[in-house]
């Protein structure tokens, strides 16, 4: 991906260089050739040329069309992670990055990833806007409180790369930096097995699920007051108002914090709201747990079947 971005960049450099030098060259050339030779000289009346005007309107227009499509193409690729990704959760807060691997490993300001594998970061903020930026991979995205955003990348070379916060977030914005550590597959496995004393993220979520008494209503059979959660991740959910929404991370998050926003058809709106009761990280654990209740095939679906479709009731 970085290569594609750079290719466009260098093309634009060439186009800019060409036009910049052309204009500068013409100005300098005219400056010398048509310099005023005696004090009362005036310039010649030159008739405007319609063809010329059209020409130098249409030509730049065509060039910009090329650039637009090129850039759009790259952007589409950036917005559509492949089906199989290694998912890692990121929570930004003033002024640090908290990273959670699904196996329970946590990191602060460092993200270890294996080389050659597509990695998808699902991110949110606890407070203000931040931006998770990896210049070497040419990716970044704002990290927004109350919402999940995502980026994906596939690292091609082991090494250490800068991680920056790229949305001004207050006092220690310049200090909210870190490293992306790309390791080859074997080293990564070694590193991974050294962490996670508390078990995987999903198992933490399972514990929380019991502690918060979610399991009293969300039973594995259909006798509970709440919908069965096994197998729902990634599939559409029928709502009371007739709409169907995909059960992705954003949906699960909202259903925990504000359950009355989207009530599943056939159920009463009796679920209590957990806003203010669970932290962002606990939310991620719960979500991972619910994900783990779906089969691997179901889990492999992209979190949002169409990330670009507007979802009911959401702004962009």
């Amino acid at each position, binding site marked *: 991906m970085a290569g594609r971005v750079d290719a466009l960049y260098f093309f634009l450099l060439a186009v800019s260089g060409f036009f910049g030098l052309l204009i500068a060259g013409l100005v300098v050339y005219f400056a010398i050739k048509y310099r005023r030779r005696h004090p009362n000289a005036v310039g010649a009346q030159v008739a405007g040329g319609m063809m010329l005007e059209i020409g130098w309107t249409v030509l730049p227009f065509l060039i910009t069309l090329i650039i637009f499509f090129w850039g759009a193409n790259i952007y589409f690729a950036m917005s559509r992670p492949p089906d199989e990704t290694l998912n890692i959760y990121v929570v930004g807060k003033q002024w640090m990055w908290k990273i959670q691997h699904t196996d329970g490993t946590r990191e602060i300001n460092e993200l270890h990833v294996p080389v050659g594998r597509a990695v998808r970061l699902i991110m949110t903020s606890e407070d203000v806007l931040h931006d998770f930026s990896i210049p070497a991979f040419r990716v970044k995205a704002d990290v927004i409180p109350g919402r999940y955003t995502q980026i994906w990348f596939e690292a091609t070379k082991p090494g250490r790369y800068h991680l920056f916060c790229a949305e001004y977030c207050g006092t220690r914005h310049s200090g909210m930096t870190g490293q992306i550590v790309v390791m080859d597959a074997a080293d990564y496995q070694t590193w991974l097995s050294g962490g996670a004393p508390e078990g995987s993220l999903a198992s933490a979520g399972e514990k929380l699920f019991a502690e918060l008494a979610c399991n009293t209503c969300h039973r594995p059979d259909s006798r509970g007051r709440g919908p069965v959660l096994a197998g729902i991740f990634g599939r559409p959910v029928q709502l009371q108002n007739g709409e169907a929404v995909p059960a992705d991370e954003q949906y699960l998050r909202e259903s925990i914090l*504000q359950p009355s926003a989207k009530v599943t058809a056939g159920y009463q*709106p009796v679920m209590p*709201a957990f806003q203010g009761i669970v932290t962002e990280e606990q939310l991620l654990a719960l979500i991972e747990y619910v994900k783990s209740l779906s089969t691997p095939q179901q889990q492999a679906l992209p979190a949002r079947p169409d990330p670009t479709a507007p979802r009911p*009731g*959401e*702004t962009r």
Partner: protein
Amino acid sequence: MREHTLTPGSHPALAHHFDNLEQQAEAATLGMWVFLLTEVLFFGGAFLVYTVYRHMYHDAFVVASHELDVVLGTINTAVLIGSSLTMALAVHAAQVGSKRLIQIFLILTIVLGCVFLGIKATEYLHKFHEHHVPGPVFQFEAKYFREAQIFFSLYFVMTGLHALHMVIGIVVMLVILWQASRGAFSAEYFVPVEVIGLYWHFVDIVWIFLFPLLYLIGRHGVA
């Protein structure tokens, strides 16, 4: 139809940089129209925020809107439309050069404006007592506790800005009333009255949008 006739010698109201009263009047009215355009954009920003959140939180908005006093709101709407009528009559009085009628109708407009503001103040007081002012003392049914605050925030900001515009309009009308009482206007020169008329009608139109959008959500017979 207004008539601006040129009088020999300079009319006392003619400013030095204009050629004639007609040019001056046209400039003044064009200026007010441009200003009203800025006001459309100003309120437009607030209406945009309203539209976005109403779309997002429709149910909460319906419930919250029902907490507003639709009787008082309707009375206020009638009062304001009435004040637009008296304002139009004031402008007409100015066109025919009737100093007495200008004064009467301006006073009526001001009075109606004040009635509107008084009723608004009463509504605000009710909201305060019912703990519907967003912030630390806000109370509302749990289901819509969050989004209702956005509704009421919009209610106070939009009606508050509207009320502020009315206050400014009333102050300007008082000035023009004073000018009228000193005989400043005639059939030849009455453009200040015309211009405040435009402004006042605009303020009325903003309310005509605010009223249904804030008070009448989901009230068309269906609960």
